[in-house]
Structures are given as structure tokens and as C-alpha cells.
């Protein structure tokens, strides 16, 4: 059970990390394109 809990924690952490990277990349693209333009 502990192993599963740990797996789930890692999965949540990776998902959050992935989300953060995605938002960062989107921001870069939007700035590059001229945000709001």
C-alpha cells in the first residue's frame, strides 16, 4: 500500500511539473508571437 501511495505522489508531482513546463513554454510562444496582438 505504501508503495502505491508513493507511486501516486510521484505521479501527481510529475503531472504538476509537466503542467508548469507547459505553461512556461506557452508563455514563451505567446511572447514570441506578440501577446494580445
Amino acid at each position, binding site marked *: *500500500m505504501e508503495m*502505491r501511495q508513493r*507511486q*501516486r505522489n510521484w*505521479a501527481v508531482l510529475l503531472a504538476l511539473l509537466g*503542467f508548469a513546463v*507547459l*505553461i512556461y*513554454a*506557452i508563455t514563451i*510562444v*505567446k511572447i514570441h*508571437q506578440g501577446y494580445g496582438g
Partner: protein
Amino acid sequence: MMDNSLSAPTRSAALAGARLGDYLELAKPRVMMLVVFTGVVGLAVAPGALHPLLAATAILCIALAAGGSAAVNMWYDRDIDAVMTRTRRRPLPQGRVEPQAALEFGIVLIFFASLLMAVAINATAAALLAGAAAFYIFVYTIWLKRRTPWNIVVGGAAGAFPPLIGWVAVTGQIDWPAVILFLIVFCWTPPHFWALALYRNDDYRRAGIPMLPVVAGPRRTKIEMLIYTLILFPLSLAPAYVGIAGPVYLGGVAVLGGLFITCAVRVLLDSTHRAARHMFGFSILYLTLLFTLLLVQPALKTWGGG
């Protein structure tokens, strides 16, 4: 009414072992694949270009919202899912995921998907995404599914949103070609689900869901199915006349439409479940191939030099 029949010890033992795979199952991955595919085609046929990263993000948002909606649907329907053979192995009826957890999982997914769509793509696409999810949950699942045989006719609109959302992600507005794609999926849904309902009639009856074969009988259902496939035929040709598809699409989809109508006629003439089973399988192939044919023109534009 909503409680399922698992005994307390079985439940608590199972709940402790909820795995990631169970959560993935809550998102109905097979349905999600077709939803994502039609969304991708909406993106591809729309005029203009979206940065590849933004296009991938839009697809991700559609997938997440579809998965979230499926999870909330499974949360609400866990009592009837436990009764039906087709659905009783789902994570909630089996007690592998706690109902509250499924609900929260679904809401979080829909919320983040809509928010991400608004930030990364545009407000119209985000509003349509949130609207489609809300429509699926409140109009289809909660309001219509258990009350009327027209549940999947009206509710089918929810599944017709993805190509529209894909289009709006690129253009920022709703245009006729996108509405046509919406209408194609909308008119495809009733014959698709009624074919299933015909051979799963006993299942739906036991669960008390008023699907058309349960309420109006198989003959009426089969006539309605034929009517929808007949309406679908000219509608499926329309993309070629609004500039998003060419002669390859037109020829291919005419053959597909002819086959789909043949299926419906065979269902009408067949007194067993064989033709209905066949038509259900073919309906999935039909929609997949129709949307694949729509990719021909954008593909030629990209790699064929015009």
C-alpha cells in the same frame, strides 16, 4: 438510490488499493480517442495556422475535459452502471475508486482544461469546452438520460463539440464549416447508440434507462436509425461544398454513406441482433474514416505543395 451494492469490508479493502489505471479508466480512454481525433481534424481543416505547441495544448485540453466529463458521468451513473453487464466492471461499481474521489478528479480535470484553454488558446474555445462538459453532465447525464428516449439525440450534441472546438481554437470564431462538422457527429450519434441499445436492450431495461428500443420497441427504433443515416448522407457531403474537403473526400464519403445506409436497411430487415451489432461496429469505423478523409486536403496542402 445512488449507493451501490458492495459490502463495506469489500469496499474499504478495494478503496485502499485505487491505482492510477483506475483513474485512467474513469476517463473512458477509448471514447476519448475518438473525441480527440475529431478535435484534431477540426484544428487541421480550419484556415490559418496555430503554433504546434499551442495546437498540442488545445488537443490536451479537449482530452482532459472529455476525461473529466466521463469521470463525473461515471460518478453520477454508478448505481445504474452496477446493474448493467456492459458497465459493471467500471472502477466505481467495482469499488476500486471512491465515488467522492471520482467526482473531484473529474471536476479538477474540467476546470484545469478550461482554464488552460482560455490562457493558451482563446476565450471562445475555452467557453465552448466548458459548455460541452457542462452540457454532457447536466443536460445529458443528469437531466435526460434517465427520463426520455431522446436522451442520446439531444445529449449527442456534447460529443459533437470537439471538431467545433478544434476549429475555434485556430480561428477564434464559429464558422459554417465547423457547424457542419458538428452536425455530422450530431446526426451520427443516434444510429450509433441505438444500434448498441438494440442488442443491449435487456441491459437498459434492467437499469431503467428509457432508451428508444425499450420505450418504443425495436421496429420504431430501426426506422428512426434509417432516417438519421439518410439525413447524414447529404450532410456528410457538405464539407466538400464549403471548401474544407476535395474530390477524394467526396468520393470516399459517398461510398461510406452508402454502406452506412445499407447497414441501417439490413438492421431494419433483420429480426436478430446480428445486423445491429455489425452496424454499431461499422458506425465507429464510419466516423473514423470520414474524419480521416477530411485530413486529405490539409495533408496535400502541407506536403503536396498546394
